[in-house]
Structure formats: C-alpha cells, structure tokens
C-alpha cells in the first residue's frame, strides 16, 4: 500500500438490507468497498423484513469488514478513524453496525465518527467527482428518503424540501407490486418502462401548496391503483409497460422540476443527485437534459455508489473527522435522525 500521508477510514453501513464495509482514503479514494446484499432474502416478503435484516447483519458483519481490510491491503493499524452509519434507518439493523464499530474503535483506540446515512449518500458524489466542492444543491431520492437540500459546506446542510408522505423509492416499490413486478420496484420499473409509452396515461403531479419544494407521492400512488382498479372493473387489461413508464415520468417530472427551481432560485451552476433512486436511468437522462439546457453541471454517482454502500459513509466520515466530530462509546442508533443534526 502507498504509505503517503493521508487519512484512512474504515466505514461500516448496516442501516437497511445491505451489510457493507469500506476503506476510504482522504474522503475521495476507495481502497475497497464490500457489500453483502440481502435482497434475495427479502424478495419473498415483498419488502425488507427488519428482524431478518438484523439477523443477516450480525451473521455477515465480521466477514464483510475483514474482506474490506483485505481488499484494501491494510490492517486496523493503518486506520485513522472508524466511520459508522448511526441513523436514519431500521433501529435493529443500525445497532449491529454501531455496536460493532464502537467495539473496534474502543479495542484499538481508533477515533469513532458517527455518520448520517443521507449525508453519506450525498458524499458519494465526492468519490466520483474529485473536483466537486460545496456549496451545491442535491436531490436525495431513495426507498426511505426524498429530500432536496443545499450542501452549504462539509457537514452543513439546508433542507429546502422533503416528502410529506411516501418516499419516491417507496412509491416505486408499491406501484411495482401493484402491477405485478415485485420487489425491489425501482430497477424493475426502470427496465419495464423502457418498453412503454410515458404519455399513455396522465397521472397527477402533486404540488404542496404552502411549500413549493416539498414532495408528495401518495396521491400519485393512489391514482395508479385507481387506474388499475378501473381497468379491472371494466374487464380491460392494462399495459404494464405503459403504467410503469407513465408513473415513472410523473415522479421524475416533479423531481426534476423542483431541482431546477432550486438551482435557479439560489443561482447554482451545479447540481447533484444521490440515493438509490438516483440510479434510475430515466431520472438521470431527464436531469442531464434539464441541466444541460440551463448550463448547469450535473453530478451523479455511478449506480453502485447510489445504492447503500459503506464507501459513501467513509467519504462523509472523512469530512466529519476533519471537522472534529468524535463519537463516544455511548453512541446510539437513531432511527429517525434528522439531516444536519449532530
């Protein structure tokens, strides 16, 4: 391993259904990133089962960490800090990573840095875009979160809008189930929608009256379900591809519109996206197009860094570490941790 000076972080992520560990140097260079996904286990239940997720985490966590150290060709002696996701997420799942990270940090006297999962998602952009620096607006869309934020500085976030009900990814999952695609909905709708007509059915684009940057997706979800019911009552079949494409467009239209509104109002010439739904190919192309039209540089992580991983936690932990954040032995999992909270 190259021994030039730098900060090397071991990062651990277990907030939902991926057990992940990574070794990241100076916040932007991945030395290793190991992800043990449980998706297959949860498929038969149509979604993540928290107790099963927690059990899988405890079963896999040491192997995942050891593999991350091995692939990075480092030992714990080379690690300057341990970063761990402590919220938001499933409490039982988070606790596995938090307890493990604390024990490693304590036993080896390595500083511990608790990381906000969403700040991790945003920081995924730093790994792939070395030139990207705050401030910039970022659209965070995943199975559990939909936020439009301005990252003002490292560790400093201003929330412009959030979802009032379902997260965007949640709506994808629910609609996928309703049209018989199964779990996880995001990638399946993305694929099927390519064969469909996005203008075949006009679904509503919800706007929240008093909060122009907020999102609401439950009305859209209901509209899709109503449409499907209507088809059934009339004895008509529906086109899975058209429903998927039209639904996806309704979601993406609102996401892009809000993001562009923020860039214009706050005068940014750059824009980033993050989170599992940021891997959606239609969202990427629509954002790219909208940004290009306005002369905005568009940043997005590659799909493997969009979905849950520990490399992004390592990136966020690095800047927290540089800001002086140190978590204690009493660090707890905080399932509903707010963005920007410490």
């Amino acid at each position, binding site marked *: 391993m190259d021994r030039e000076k730098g900060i090397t972080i071991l990062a651990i992520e277990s907030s939902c259904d991926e057990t992940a560990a990574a070794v990241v140097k100076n916040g932007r260079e991945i030395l290793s990133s190991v992800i043990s996904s449980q998706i297959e286990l949860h498929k038969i239940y149509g979604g993540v089962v928290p107790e099963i997720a927690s059990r899988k985490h405890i*079963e896999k966590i040491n192997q995942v960490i050891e593999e991350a150290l091995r692939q990075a060709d480092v030992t714990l002696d080379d690690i300057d800090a341990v970063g761990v996701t402590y919220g938001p997420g499933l409490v039982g799942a988070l606790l596995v990573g938090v307890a*493990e990270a604390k024990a490693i940090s304590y036993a080896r006297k390595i500083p511990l840095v608790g990381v906000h999962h969403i700040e991790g998602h945003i920081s995924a952009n730093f790994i792939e875009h070395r030139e990207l620096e705050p401030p910039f607006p970022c659209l965070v869309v995943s199975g559990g979160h939909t936020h439009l934020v301005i990252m003002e500085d490292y560790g400093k976030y201003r929330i412009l809008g959030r979802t009032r009900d379902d997260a965007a990814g949640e709506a994808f999952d629910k609609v996928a189930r309703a049209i018989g695609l199964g779990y996880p909905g995001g990638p399946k709708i993305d694929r099927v929608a390519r064969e469909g007509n996005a203008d075949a059915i006009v679904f509503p684009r919800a706007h929240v009256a008093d909060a122009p940057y907020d999102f609401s997706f439950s009305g859209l979800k209901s509209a899709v379900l109503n449409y499907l019911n209507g088809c059934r009552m009339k004895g008509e079949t529906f086109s899975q591809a058209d429903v998927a494409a039209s639904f996806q467009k309704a979601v993406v239209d609102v996401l892009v519109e809000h993001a562009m509104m923020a860039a214009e109002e706050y005068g940014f010439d750059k824009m980033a996206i993050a989170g599992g739904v940021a891997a959606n190919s239609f969202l990427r192309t629509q954002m790219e197009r909208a940004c290009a039209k306005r002369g905005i540089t568009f940043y997005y992580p590659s799909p493997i860094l969009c979905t849950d991983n520990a490399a992004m936690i390592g990136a966020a932990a690095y800047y927290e570490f540089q800001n002086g954040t140190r978590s204690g032995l009493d660090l707890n999992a905080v399932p509903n941790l707010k963005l920007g909270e410490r």
Partner: protein
Amino acid sequence: MKILGIDSSGLVASAAVVQDDQLLAEYTVNYKKTHSQTLLPMLDEIARMTELDLNTLDAIAVAAGPGSFTGLRIGSATAKGLGLALDKPLIGVPTLEALAYNLWGSDRLVCPIMDARRNQVYTGIYYFENGGMKTQMLQTAVNVEELAKRVNEIRRDVIFLGDGVNVYRETLEQKVGVGHCYAPAHLNRQRAGAVAALGCLYAAQGKFETAAQHQPDYLRVSQAERERAKKEEAFGEPHD
C-alpha cells in the same frame, strides 16, 4: 485464563472479567434498557478500574441467547467487534445456562425463566453434581404450564429465577406441585460474572468460535418467517 463476559440478553446489562478462580470485576445494571449506550462504557469502567489491557484477554464470552433479539445482537456485535479488533476467539454461552450457574452448588433443581412474550418462557432445567452443572432439560421456548408439568415429572425440589418469575408467579404457584422457592435479588438475574466463569469451563473444553462465526441462538424464527410458514401450511407447500 482471563475471560471477558458480556450479557445484554434481557433487562440487565452486565460486563465482567474472570481470571481463573477469581472475579476481577463485574458491572451489572438492571435499570432501563439502554444497552446500546451503556454496555461499552461499563466495560471501559471495568477496564480502567482494574488496569485491564484488553490484549491480555484469552477470549470473550457472551450470553448467546435466548433473550431479547435486539439485546442479544448488541452483546453479540460488541463481542464480535472486540474479537475482530483484538484477534481473540469468542465463546457463546447459552443465556439460561449462565443464569442457572448463578446458583452453583444448589442441591435443588435450578430453573431459570425468562419472559419470552407470546405466552411463552425461555427456560431450561439444571442441577449440580460433583461440583459441575448438568442439564436436565436443554434451553427452549415453552408455555409456563408445560414447564410446570416437566418440573413436576422430575419430582425434585426446585429454585426458580429470572425475569419471567414475576410475570408467571401466579401460574407457577398454581401448577408446580413440588417444593419450590425463588432466588434472592443478588442471584436472580443475568450476571456477566457467571457468563465469564462458564466461559472459562467452555474454554478448557476448547469450545471456541471465531468472532466471524459467532451469532446469537435466538431459539425462535422471526415473526415474518413464522407467519409465512403458517400460510404455507394452510395453503399447502408449493411444489415444482
């Protein structure tokens, strides 16, 4: 042989260090369930008080279930993290064995009872013979009436202990037909000293696990798996 013991399987959080025939330190708290925040600071306190260098430990013994699913995982993940960081083996000690070991040397049967909810208890039946603990009934999840029946069948006096005692005291009083009593306050809950002491015995028998291998023994599948199995039973299992 120096062994760290950890138990966070129930309402009690406890950490202890045993060296051969001596308990060097034990920190046990039975107050609110915030194990995630308290367990490691408790271990740190012990380490500072006894000038313990964690590298001198031979193994980490952890109450490995049954118990609260989350509580077990906090103890397990802590033990696994320590094992990984210190390159030390783990010893998984069945929770109910460790509870029973609190009453080492009793001439009665020892029957620890933990409240398992859903009208069940986690329990086992143990006795002492020639200075060693023997298992009469392996730890399991049953309803308390079934436990009383088993105890009655053995026809020996028994001591009950554990957090399930108060929950099921009335039923025990009604159904247990043999002489019985209840362990006192200082012996009737999980104690990491017992986990570590049993850990020493396990170690002497070579019953180690790697930190990577270790996982709790819940004695129960998750609710989702249970409901799914029930559904499959009702509709018949799918065949290819």
